[in-house]
């Protein structure tokens, strides 16, 4: 019975991941992460994704604070944040988040505040979706372990 439960959980996890891949939320970089996880680093994905979440939330907060500031003009600083977000998202394999960040960066390079605001909205939405899904995956994988 236990084995069945585990298998089911694992199947659920795989299904979740497959869905994310299918939706383009995750890309092959995430597969690389999975390959890096082995006996020597059994929780690699969990750790690195958690680091990513922590960092990203800080960056998103910064971006929001910057943009919502009435006298906002520091697009360059926003670009710096976006850079890091793009880098970490693409390193994780968070394809959709990364794409939105690229669009966000383009808007900020054009110094377009409305464009940035729009991009920030989409970014936050994509990020939340990713986080929820991955939390789910981890929960399932932890349960199965």
């Amino acid at each position: 019975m236990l084995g069945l439960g585990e298998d089911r959980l694992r199947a659920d996890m795989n299904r979740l991941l497959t869905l994310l891949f299918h939706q383009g939320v995750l890309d092959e970089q995430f597969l690389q992460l999975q390959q890096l996880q082995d006996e020597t680093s059994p929780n690699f994905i969990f750790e690195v994704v958690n680091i990513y979440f922590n960092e990203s939330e800080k960056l998103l907060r910064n971006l929001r604070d910057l943009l919502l500031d009435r006298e906002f003009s520091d697009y360059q600083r926003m670009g710096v944040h976006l850079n890091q977000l793009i880098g970490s998202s693409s390193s994780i394999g968070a394809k959709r988040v990364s794409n939105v960040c690229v669009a966000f960066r383009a808007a900020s390079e054009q110094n377009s505040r409305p464009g940035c605001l729009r991009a920030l909205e989409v970014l936050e939405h994509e990020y939340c979706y990713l986080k929820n899904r991955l939390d789910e995956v981890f929960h399932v994988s932890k349960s199965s372990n």
Partner: protein
Amino acid sequence: MTVEQKSVEQNDRFPVGMRVLAVDADPTCLMLLDTLLRKCQYHGRISLSSLFFVSVFWFALSNGFTYAVTTTSQAVMALKMLRENRNMFDLVISDVHMPDMDGFKLLELVGLEMDLPVIMLSAYGDTKLVMKGISHGACDYLLKPVRIEELKNIWQHKYRLYLKRISCVASQQANMVASLGSADSAYLQMASLNGLGNIRDIADSGQLHDASFTSFSPTHVLGRLNTPTGLGMRSLSSSATVRLGHTHNSCSPDGLNSFHPVIQPGNQNGRILQGVPMSLELDQLQQNHHVGGLSATNHSMAYPVCSVFSDTKGIVGSSRNSLYGVPTNPVKIEDHLQDTHLRVACANQSFVPASCYSTEFPSDAPDFERRNDNWPSVPQSSEVQANCYTLSDCFRQTNLIDSSDGISSIAMHMATSRQDVSSLPALLPDTRTYSLQSQAALTCSNAGQNVNLTLKQAWDNHRQDAAHQLNPFGFSAPFNQRLDPESTTCHLNSGFSLNGQSNFVDPFHMLHNDVDQSTMEKTPKLKSGHLKEGNKPQGNYAHKTVDSLEDLVSVMLNQLFPNFLSYINEVNLMVCQHEGMLFPYTLDWHLLMKILGLLTSEAFNCGSLAGINT
């Protein structure tokens, strides 16, 4: 493909001992980088220290490879670590955008202070940024997300950097020498006609060994020698050729074929007397191998000379110079050595009429002396420039004699520095027999000085002298006639016993026999006895000198570094396959030792010389 090549390519392990410092403000990427590098069989040790994180230290299990990864999210910390101990790391990977310091700034500082290869990392693939990275001296520019395949190859940057640097220095050196030898153009043109067509054909093949061998190397010399000397030379060259051919096969199926004509007495006799063809050849080769912009013939002419010195010195571990670069082909080092030796000989000849040289390098004498003084120690400096000058100086002073003296001095130093006397005597004739004839006092420590002085005199005295009886190791009859007729204080042979490979000894015996009787008048006799052609004595003796030196070098190489060639081959393969950087003529001695140390001391048998991942 050679066996060595195959084994290297099949083994995808990394060279041991590559220590990487990874710098990235983004902890996600940093952790990923660390894990990736560790999976590349790096031995990981991570320290995350930053204002944002609690420091975490853990040690990865050693899997037998001592690749070490150190990570930091602060550029300032990275610099501090690098400055603390320059030898702590072999490679730096750095993000471009960091809060505390610009990645390019870090790149500059690391390049300036520590001279380490730096790889830039960025989420931005903007062309301008990439160019900025390159112009600041980055070895590579990786885009995030970083893939493990890209990281698997970064270790090569370390060696590429070495070779690149040496190549640059060598190019500069050649340029300098070329500029100094510009007056020789007329002579060069005259001499260039003979083998030029051949050379071009050969050079066009883009194969160093091809060009070099067909153009000048043992072929010419061998062609002229029908004596036991010649046979000895031939056999030596054969062995060398075979060896080279073996390794060369991997690079070019024609390589082995190209060797065969070398053995045959060539119809290129006229060439060997002419430094220009060789230099032109060299020029071609250099162009083919993308070494600097040596456009002038004179460059070529000068360059081989320097190279020869470099080579021999490199082998010896002499201070000023080193074996430059790894030839592009697996055949390289030995091939190159032979070539360069011959080039020296030919170049010497070309230098003969170059009176312009005589007044150009008075200041180089100290270099020569200094160099000699430095020889006994295994050096690490790659002052190619100095070597080039001194070599030119040698040429200026005594034409062949000088270079040969230099070479023989090198040989001596080589022996002493290596404390491997036994190998050297095989190559050195009993100099005592020459003592009466020679005025050159070649001591192990200050041979250069003596040679310098005597050669200077000799040069001035017998610049017009056509008969230079030249003992390959610097004892010259002409000297005797010009200089104070004292017995040579030949320390060259002190401590050396003549254990000989007959091959090596034969030519010298021949020479020796003749020299014993010889006076200036006898000189032509010797020449004719040893050399088929009644070419200029300089040329002939140059050949002799070259042969002996060549053999000396070959023997030394083989004795001291049994796998030298294969190592070089592998290193060169690794380098060439990825950037096509060709450094055919020089190899930094320090680098060489490092390579050999890496390859031989640890897990080389396991193929630690990483597989060539394209």
